[in-house]
């Protein structure tokens, strides 16, 4: 017969902390007013502004305030959000006049003495409240062919690249397609014809990729009258990018590449 061994469970790890360390103290709270731009075409073509007052914590973001509004005060407030952690790019909106991700903007960084203005991003058709039609934005993105195009046969091993070659386009790989840049661009606001910073950033990502062979085609697409030459270097896009991409610099590099190719 086998003897039963009783395993003693591992004792819970215990760290001796001196008093006063570890406790972060109470998180400060403050009262805010969220002023949301409301639009519901099924009810009225009129736009109105609704104020919502609430008490929030110092660790809360604008998205938390929107959640609190929707869950506790007015369930009809509509906005997009998916991951809520600055990765998916769903909740780009105009916060106090600047394009930001609601999930990356801390309330404590805003002026809480005044109402916090929350609007949909500009230049794209508003569908309801903070939700805009992103199709025109994605159409421009599709037009620059955002995928690897390579000549010749399928390789039998990985396509190798040196770290310097990777570094060349590293900045523009960070794009999450939130449309904060394109919808902050005054040229895009005019008539929506401009390809927009996001499309150019994603073209840049492949144009300067040593493994890609369709750089010339992309440069030709962006040499359009609605392409890179409509950029006026106002730097709104760089300021708006939640990923810190140097958007205006990327556009300038694409301009240089088109020049180098044609002159």
């Amino acid at each position: 017969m086998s003897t039963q061994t009783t395993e003693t469970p591992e004792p819970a790890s215990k760290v001796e902390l001196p008093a006063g360390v570890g406790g972060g103290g109470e998180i400060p709270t403050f009262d805010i007013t969220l002023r949301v731009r409301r639009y519901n075409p099924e009810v009225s073509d009129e736009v109105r502004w609704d104020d919502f007052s609430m008490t929030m914590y110092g660790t809360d973001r604008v998205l938390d305030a929107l959640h609190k509004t929707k869950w506790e005060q007015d369930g009809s407030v509509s906005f997009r959000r998916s991951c809520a952690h600055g990765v998916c790019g769903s909740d780009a909106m105009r916060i106090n006049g600047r394009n930001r991700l609601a999930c990356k903007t801390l309330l404590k960084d805003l002026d809480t003495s005044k109402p916090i203005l929350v609007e949909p991003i500009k230049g794209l058709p508003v569908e309801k409240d903070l939700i805009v039609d992103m199709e025109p934005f994605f159409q421009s993105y599709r037009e620059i062919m955002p995928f690897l195009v390579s000549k010749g046969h399928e390789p039998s091993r990985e396509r190798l690249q040196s770290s310097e070659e990777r570094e060349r386009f590293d900045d523009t790989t960070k794009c999450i397609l939130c449309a904060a840049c394109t919808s902050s661009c005054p040229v895009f606001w005019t008539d929506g014809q401009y390809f927009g910073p996001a499309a150019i950033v994603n073209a840049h990502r492949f144009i300067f990729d040593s493994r890609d062979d369709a750089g010339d085609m992309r440069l030709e697409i962006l040499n359009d009258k609605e392409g890179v030459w409509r950029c006026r270097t106002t730097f709104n896009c760089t300021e708006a990018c939640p990923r810190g991409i140097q958007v205006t610099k990327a556009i300038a590099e694409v301009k240089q590449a088109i020049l180098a190719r044609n002159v």
Partner: protein
Amino acid sequence: MSTDIEAPRSGRVSPKYLRSGKSVGNFEMLAWLFMRLSGVVLVVLIFVHLYLNLVAGDGIKGIDFGFVAGKWANPVWQFWDLAMLWLAMLHGTNGVRTIINDYAEKTTTRRWLKGVLYSAAVVIIVLGTLVIFTFDPCPVINGVPTVADYCPAP
């Protein structure tokens, strides 16, 4: 009972946003390049012009009809002023063209504004060029020569 489910909207773009065909040629690129190059040249042309006219010699008090006549008697200054006229006009016209493109929302508005702009530019360039080359400070009108201290004695 069957329910009709609408096809996904993906790919359907509001017609306002559709680009009307691809533009051919490198016009926008060349216009962009021209702005940068003419800008650099104009800085030199304009500041030398301003210095010679307003600071050097008698300064601003020295400017009169005779001063301009004397300058344009020299082919160097004729060429200088011609280059300045053409570059400044084309640079300025292209700048206003891009502003119209950026701010006019309707195609018809755009067309009208650009029409006015281009007409004005052509009139000024042609008139200016004509003046630089046909300028005669001492014309003989009806057989009577102009008498001025800067004119050669008849």
